[in-house]
């Protein structure tokens, strides 16, 4: 430390004249204890202050001294004790106020310590509650989002169920229509040769021209291929739409393109998406409409 600079900083003047806050005052006292030069400077200043204070010196009224001597003679007796100012009375050994010359610490540190512990406990509780808040908050939002996704899933399922029941219902209705309407003609197409055992039933209404089909026994077509239904009219094959084969479709009624007139129906295997003209060497099944 630069002692000269410290001495000339003005802090010692403030210290000696009692103008410093407690914390800074203790700092100065630490420095004074370490540096004899600073201590000497402080002593100089204290002498100056003593001389300054003497400027205002004033004789107190007579009689105070005698009263004081009476008090200190009697101070050990209860009567004398009463004469003392309240803060000096026994048994209060510790003075209420510390003077800058000597700090009186008494029981203050232990109280301070207790308060420190209490403060620490409060802070710990507070932090704990903050953490728990975060924890429960994130948990609750987690539950909330899970609940919402469950509700959404349920709604989706409900919608699916409804649409399924609707389609199932319309399919059932179609079947019932086909069964009930006497105009419908049922044509059973059976495989022959290499395709023996394959069965497709075509259901045609010559009045409404509606065509339905059930591929009751038809293998899955090779990859890239698709079955196509043709209506036979004047020896010509007219496109009646593509349909699916395979075990999954065996019970399903597939709606086909309407046919105005048909003498019979034929099924060919075509490239996926169907073709405008039938590939005759790929004829799988055919049957005539019974007059």
């Amino acid at each position, binding site marked *: 430390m630069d002692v000269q600079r410290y001495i000339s900083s003005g802090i010692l003047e403030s210290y000696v004249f*009692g103008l410093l806050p407690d914390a800074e005052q203790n700092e100065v006292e630490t420095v004074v204890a370490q540096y004899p030069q600073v201590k000497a400077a402080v002593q100089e200043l204290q002498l*100056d202050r003593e001389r300054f204070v003497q400027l205002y010196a004033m004789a107190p*009224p007579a009689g105070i001294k005698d009263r004081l001597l009476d008090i*200190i003679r009697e101070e050990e007796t209860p009567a004398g004790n009463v004469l003392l*100012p309240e803060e000096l009375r026994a048994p209060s050994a510790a003075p209420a106020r510390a003077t800058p010359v000597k700090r009186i610490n008494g029981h203050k540190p232990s109280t301070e310590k207790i308060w420190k512990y209490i403060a620490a406990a409060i802070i710990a509780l507070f932090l704990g509650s903050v953490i728990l808040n975060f924890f429960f908050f994130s948990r609750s939002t987690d539950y909330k989002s899970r609940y919402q996704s469950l509700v959404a899933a349920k709604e989706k399922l409900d919608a699916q169920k409804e649409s399924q029941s609707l389609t199932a219902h319309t399919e059932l209705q179609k079947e019932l229509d086909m069964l009930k309407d006497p105009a419908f003609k049922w044509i059973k197409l059976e495989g022959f040769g290499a395709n023996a055992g394959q069965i497709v039933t075509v259901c045609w209404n010559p009045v409404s021209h509606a065509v339905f089909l059930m591929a009751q026994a038809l293998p899955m077509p090779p990859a890239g291929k698709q079955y196509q239904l043709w209506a036979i009219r004047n020896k010509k094959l007219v496109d009646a739409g593509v349909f699916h084969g395979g075990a999954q479709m065996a019970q399903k009624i597939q709606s086909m393109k309407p046919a105005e007139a048909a003498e019979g129906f034929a099924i060919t295997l075509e490239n996926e998406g169907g073709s405008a003209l039938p590939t005759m060497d790929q004829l799988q099944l055919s049957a005539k409409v019974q007059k």
Partner: protein
Amino acid sequence: MDYHVTYTEAELVQGLHARDQKVFSFLYDHYSPALYGVVVKVLNDHAQAVDVLQDVFLKIWRYADQYNEDKGRLFTWMLNIARNTAIDVLRSKAYKLEQKIQNITDDVHLNGGPLTVYQSIDHLGFSKVLDKLTKEQRTLIDLAYYKGCTQEEISRALDIPLGTVKTRLRNAIIQLRNILNK
């Protein structure tokens, strides 16, 4: 300094520790004018100052074992007790800051009240010393030292920036030292 010393500093301290009433009597005779001056200057109330002076001497008597000679002379310690006790009383009276300032302007010393100039500064003459300080310097020292105002309070009361208060107070004290050491 010449106090017509019949006791050395160490003897005074020892005497206080030993609860020697003759030492107490000596201290009162030699230091009560200075301490009374401080108390009167702080409180500006003679009747109250008498009570406070009595408390101050009882504290000196009672707390003698708390005196620490490393921190300054016995007189410095006694001065601190006098100043702090008087300022405590002043504060407990809940004086308003304005009143404190008012008190300085009607100060008994500035108007030449009854006083005893201590012999050691006879050669200076106290009015001569104070004349060499500006009015502002006197006000600052009085507020800070005798009224126990913090520098923040002075800054607010006199409407001067805190930094300026600090500088001016320091200069006032240095000026005072220079006058006293001439």
